[in-house]
């Protein structure tokens, strides 16, 4: 038996798209097999078919050489397939044990027998070096620990084929190293792992083989030892990718944004912002690194005026803007590329043209005496579309919804930069974009910096922060851990700071 999983000619279509088109995919027993592709390439769909969340339109699945029909996740579980989803599926006010046994509770005399379950979980945890306390409540443990609970959940169900969906997206670099160690341990115990990812570094670090998917089709399967990041990227994108960003020396000038001891109350479940201070000068990119949910959202909303501040001040060009409305802040030179482009960036039912005037429709020459000057707006939109390479079926009159993610983002970036801002707040500006669009947006951000604008980059992608920033601030638990010069730091140091370690303690 060579392959533990074989998927043959799998096809799965949704209205309007073919997510998987005649995909062939094989996993050997005892290997870590990476599934690489850009967002929307079809890798998650393929795995959801394997896990029984979707039914394929055509094609067959063989497990251990036998043909199987996986119509729902319970069957997948019975067949020894387990999946750690990108967004964990845990009950927050339950203990680790309660979460793990959920759905298959052992019963003794009409009572749930948590004690025996708990001791078994402890045993598994020790065997794989997971270091999980079965009695801890989920809401009290870190994200990395929650992920290990998900892994335990699979192991408790005797899964042999483990699917990890973008497992490192929520982890600090140290936690990633830890996870890789765990994954190797799992392989030694005879498990097989499918790793869904779009991060090349991780594949090179841990996977044995890699299958690349593009536009719902398999581009190829390669041995990781025979390839390198450049080749994988080329397979993934379909053309050569430039990795190095051509970055000139920064030339910082006067201060544009100053945040002084800002405190903000958080939404339920997340940390607020505590006594946060930071300065961003013109001509520099300041990156804010941190694990998701450590106060970034609150900070951004406070800066653009969508969230009330508790105490502290925000200055733009030395003027206190803390009490100004969002519109007044925009008018004093603030631009914002939001992380959720569908929720905060675009009005999807509006055309590209209408979206491009979202922040200045009421100003001349876009409108006069309350009447929109559609002719001018149209010509202006054509210009922005050309300048920022926004591609759509019907040009300016295409609905924003019909654009691809990359082009939607380019439209937003175009709108924000077109307003000629002094401060550009870029929040996860490349989230979910393909490599080409990422390159493009990075270039635009650097261009803004070189023109003397202040760029405040808030991102969960550490690579992005390291590549673009001149200075890097790290946020943890709503507090500023420290600010370092990008040239004098490395991933390791930032990673430790992201976990709350002060700089002094690191050096």
């Amino acid at each position, binding site marked *: 038996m060579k392959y533990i999983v074989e998927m043959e000619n799998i096809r799965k279509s949704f*209205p309007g798209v073919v997510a998987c088109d005649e995909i062939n995919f094989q996993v050997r027993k005892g290997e870590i097999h990476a599934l690489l592709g850009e967002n929307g390439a079809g890798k998650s769909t393929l795995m959801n078919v394997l896990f029984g969340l979707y039914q394929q339109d055509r094609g067959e699945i063989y497990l251990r050489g036998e043909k199987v029909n996986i119509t729902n996740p319970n069957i997948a579980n019975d067949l020894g397939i387990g999946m750690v989803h990108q967004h964990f599926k845990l009950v927050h006010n339950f203990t680790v044990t309660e979460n793990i046994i959920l759905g298959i509770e052992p019963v003794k005399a009409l009572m749930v027998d948590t004690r025996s379950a708990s001791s078994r979980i402890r045993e598994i945890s020790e065997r794989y070096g997971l270091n999980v306390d079965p009695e801890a409540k989920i809401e009290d443990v870190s994200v990395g620990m929650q992920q290990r609970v998900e892994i335990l959940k699979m192991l408790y169900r005797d899964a042999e084929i483990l699917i990890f969906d973008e497992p490192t997206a929520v982890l600090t670099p140290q936690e990633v190293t830890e996870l890789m160690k765990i994954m190797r341990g799992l392989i030694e115990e005879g498990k097989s792992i499918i790793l869904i990812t779009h991060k090349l570094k991780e594949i090179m670090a841990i996977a044995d083989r890699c299958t690349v998917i593009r536009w719902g089709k398999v581009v190829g399967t390669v041995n990781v030892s025979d390839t390198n990041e450049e080749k994988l990227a080329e397979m993934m994108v379909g053309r050569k990718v430039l990795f190095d960003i051509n970055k000139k020396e920064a030339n910082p000038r006067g201060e544009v944004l100053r945040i002084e001891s800002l405190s903000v109350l958080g939404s339920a479940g997340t940390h607020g912002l505590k006594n946060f201070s930071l300065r961003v000068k013109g001509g520099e990119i300041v990156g804010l690194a941190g694990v998701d949910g450590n106060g970034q959202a609150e900070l951004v909303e406070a800066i*653009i005026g*969508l969230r009330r501040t508790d105490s502290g001040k925000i200055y733009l060009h030395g003027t206190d803007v803390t009490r100004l*409305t*969002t*519109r*007044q*802040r*925009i008018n004093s030179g603030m631009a*914002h590329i*939001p992380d959720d482009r569908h*929720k*905060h*960036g*675009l*009005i*999807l*039912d*509006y*055309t590209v*043209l*209408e979206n491009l*005037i*979202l*922040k200045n*429709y*009421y100003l001349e020459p876009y*409108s006069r005496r*309350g*009447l*929109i000057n*559609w002719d001018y707006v149209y010509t202006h939109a054509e210009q922005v579309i050309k300048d920022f390479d926004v591609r759509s079926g019907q040009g300016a*009159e295409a609905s924003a919804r019909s654009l691809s993610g990359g082009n939607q983002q380019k439209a937003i970036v175009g709108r924000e930069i077109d307003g000629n801002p002094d401060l550009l707040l870029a929040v996860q500006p490349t989230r979910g974009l393909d490599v080409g669009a990422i390159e493009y947006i990075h270039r635009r951000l650097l261009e803004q910096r070189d023109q003397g604008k202040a760029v405040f980059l808030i991102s969960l992608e550490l690579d992005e922060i390291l590549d673009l920033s001149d200075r890097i601030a790290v946020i943890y638990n709503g507090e500023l851990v420290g600010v370092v010069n990008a040239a004098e730091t490395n991933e390791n140091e930032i990673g430790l700071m992201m976990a709350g370690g002060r700089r002094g303690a690191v050096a």
Partner: protein
Amino acid sequence: MKTKLRVKKDFLISISAILLGLLAGAGLMAVTGNSPLEGFIYLFRGGTMNIERIGNTLATATPLIFTGLSVAFAFKTGLFNIGAAGQMLIGGLCATAIGLTFDWPKAILLTVIAVASLIGGALWAALPGLLKARYNVHEVVATIMMNWIAYWAIYYIIPQHFKGPFLETESQRIPEAASLKVPWLTDLFSGSFINLGFFLAIVFVVIIAFVLEKTTMGYELKAVGYNRDAAEAAGISVNRNIILSMAIAGALAGLGGATFYIGFASNMQIGVLPAQGFDGIAVALLGANAPWGVFTAAIFFGLLHNGKGFMSAMTAIPPEIADTIIATIIYFAATSVLIERNWDKLKKINLENILRRKKRGKLAVKAGGER
């Protein structure tokens, strides 16, 4: 143009809803042992067979145009104005009170009445808007409550201050000078109760279409309706737009109330929430929230309402069938999402068939060549 595709699709959906509704009606006529064809002929003739009936159809449609516009306008900002009935009552009360109190020349009196009913309706709807903006009270709940407040306010005010000569339950007839009916128009339509309200309705269809398409105000209102969060992040005041949208919706319904009580009717009765307020929801749905769509849908509804009497007089079909048809059309319009999805599916199947046929054709050619 930029919205042509969308408009075409909306139009197809509305037409499908109407056809499905008529089909259901035909089924019912057949089941009750009548000829559907005969039924429909009398139904439509009843609304159109002479100039008087056409006039009546337009007169019936007039308040529906206003309430339809009202609901559609609020929809555009993402709000559900279910309180058009109450706003109509307040508009009607303003109109009736002024009409019965002042003895001015017709032109001045009607202008004042129009402005007053507009403001009355606007204020009546602005309050739920304010509650929504300030305290996040859902506008559906608030506007329903406002309906009943209006209902009981009328219940008290009319008998107390404007009591009719014979009945406790209705107001006096408004004087000639305060009526939207004018002799030349009545004569033109040979005695129909069409009135100036219809022209006012056309004016407002044009105004609303203009506001929505050409002004910054319309742009803002629609932006808030489509995506509140993005509008807010772009610096648009969501709360201000919610109140404004409700006020405009209320103003339209208020005017609709005036055209109903001093145009279509000539006095106000207590204890009735005007059905036109709720039919406005259906009109807006069928008209796909577009001003001219609303206009067309209102006239279609006016036709059905007007023709059903004639149908039941000329055949054995009960008039309730017409109401059922209306209800079914509303049902299909409301589930237009389903219709839309099926349209897409139908198109896809067609496309796939065509592709397959082409492929087969090619293969056949190839095979032929090989032979």
